[in-house]
């Protein structure tokens, strides 16, 4: 497991009294893209939140390049090279597109994180962000907001990018545009964990996938090899879902 950039071992997470994850074993290698699929409430977003330090988890449950880091504060996770495109985009309302992006650049600079992403490169990736630089984020369309959110995460110069349902609520054309950016991100050597409802999209964009059901991993394997059948079993539960 020495090649894994990040791995989890029996990861358990709960919201108050409600246990959301029941011992997740997971790993992702440097440069790899892994998709996380599963029905609503399966625990996909919870898993990302736990990785990002947004939920309390024990140190040993998460390792980054072998070092136990579970429960590390979110801002320190960014310092270690993990960034997230959160569910709901979570842009800074009242600030312009450029200011939203600058916040991330500022912090990367403060934390001494270096990487290949710059405002210039981001503008090449999503030209609209240059055009709308001075626009307050709340007056952008959903797709444009998602681009800002992705851009903001990339400017944290991550080694590992967590994407939480980046296609949610967007038109197919916009989704294609956004997904077209992912290979560019990987070309930078960045690993990606992709939470996605759309199984086809998830398979296409990933090397491997994990399927979650009610807080447990029910299926894992190379994205190209798992069959629709296995996925639908793992998705909805069944007697012998684990392949």
């Amino acid at each position, binding site marked *: 497991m020495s090649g894994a950039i990040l791995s989890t071992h029996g990861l358990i997470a709960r919201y108050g009294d409600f246990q959301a994850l029941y011992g997740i074993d997971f790993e992702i290698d440097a440069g790899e893209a892994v998709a996380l699929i599963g029905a609503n409430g399966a625990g996909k977003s919870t898993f990302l939140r736990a990785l*990002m*330090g*947004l939920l309390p988890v024990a140190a040993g449950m998460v390792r980054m390049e072998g070092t136990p880091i579970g429960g590390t*504060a*979110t*801002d320190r996770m*960014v*310092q270690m090279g993990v*960034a*997230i495109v*959160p569910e709901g985009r*979570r*842009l*800074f*309302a*009242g*600030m312009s597109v450029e*200011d*939203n992006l*600058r*916040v*991330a650049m*500022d*912090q*990367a*600079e*403060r*934390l001494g*994180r270096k990487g290949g992403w710059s405002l210039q490169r981001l503008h090449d990736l999503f030209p609209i962000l240059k055009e709308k630089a001075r626009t307050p984020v709340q007056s952008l369309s959903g797709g444009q907001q998602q681009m800002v959110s992705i851009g*903001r*995460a990339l400017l*944290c110069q991550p080694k590992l990018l967590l994407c939480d349902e980046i296609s949610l609520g967007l038109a197919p054309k916009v989704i294609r545009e956004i997904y077209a950016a992912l290979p560019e991100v990987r070309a930078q050597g960045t690993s990606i964990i992709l939470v996605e409802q759309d199984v086809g999209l998830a398979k296409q964009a990933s090397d491997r996938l994990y399927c979650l059901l009610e807080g447990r991993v029910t299926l894992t394997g190379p994205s190209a090899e798992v069959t629709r059948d296995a996925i639908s079993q793992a998705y909805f539960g069944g007697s012998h879902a684990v392949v």
Partner: protein
Amino acid sequence: MQWFDALVQGVLLGGMYAQYALGMALMFGVMKIVNVSHGDLVILLSLVGISLASSFGLGPFTVMVALVPLALALGWILQKAILNKVVGEDPLPSLIATFGLSLALQNLMLQIWSANSRSLPGGGIESRSIEIGGIYIGLLPVIVLVFAIGLTWGLDLMLKRTRFGRALRAAAADVEAAAMTGIDARKVYASATAIAVGILGFAAVFQSLRSTVAPADGGAQLIYAFEAVIIGGMGSIWGAFAGSMVLGITQAIGFRIDPGFGVLAGHLVFLLVLATRPQGLFGKV
């Protein structure tokens, strides 16, 4: 002419109010933290300044050099020890905590300095004035106004143009999302409160030069600062400055109508703004 004079005096008074309002604009307007002890901190700093001046024979501007760093430290400790533990969606805990602090501070000051009113000897600048076209303008109020404009300009620029300002606005908009970009919100907030209280270091010196201070005066300063911020509009630094001007001018004109009506006129304009334009003059809807 009498009314023009009232207008000028009102603008100058507004300069004083702006100095309380700026810190409030940062804490209440941007960070959404209610600090009920805001006014008491001005009084505390004033009294410390007066004691410093009388024990070491310091001039007002030397006192200022000593007070501002003290105020910064006070603000930083306030945020670290109390406010960071009570910030959140629900404003009640921060309201209650600072309310208790206000009660404790007021009575602590009463014990140390007694209920007497005091003021800072200014070595003559407090009584000097210039005559322009038949209107006498005090030198000190002009200095206060100049400082207020400078502080407003600096604070606005800091908030809009610096790394710290962007981080603060980001944290105020969404603490969790701010953390996702690497911001340590508690640290940013501690610095912001340090700045907010630090500005009160200036206000304290000017307040105790312009008039007198007594331990129980903090409540009035708190109300004026809140009124200025809300009249101007939450989240806008220049708005708070404009709100201070509106408040100062209204009070000065009200005072000309009837000496008992000055402060009341200010409150009434504040309530009028609340009723007709709750987002304030410069606030976004």
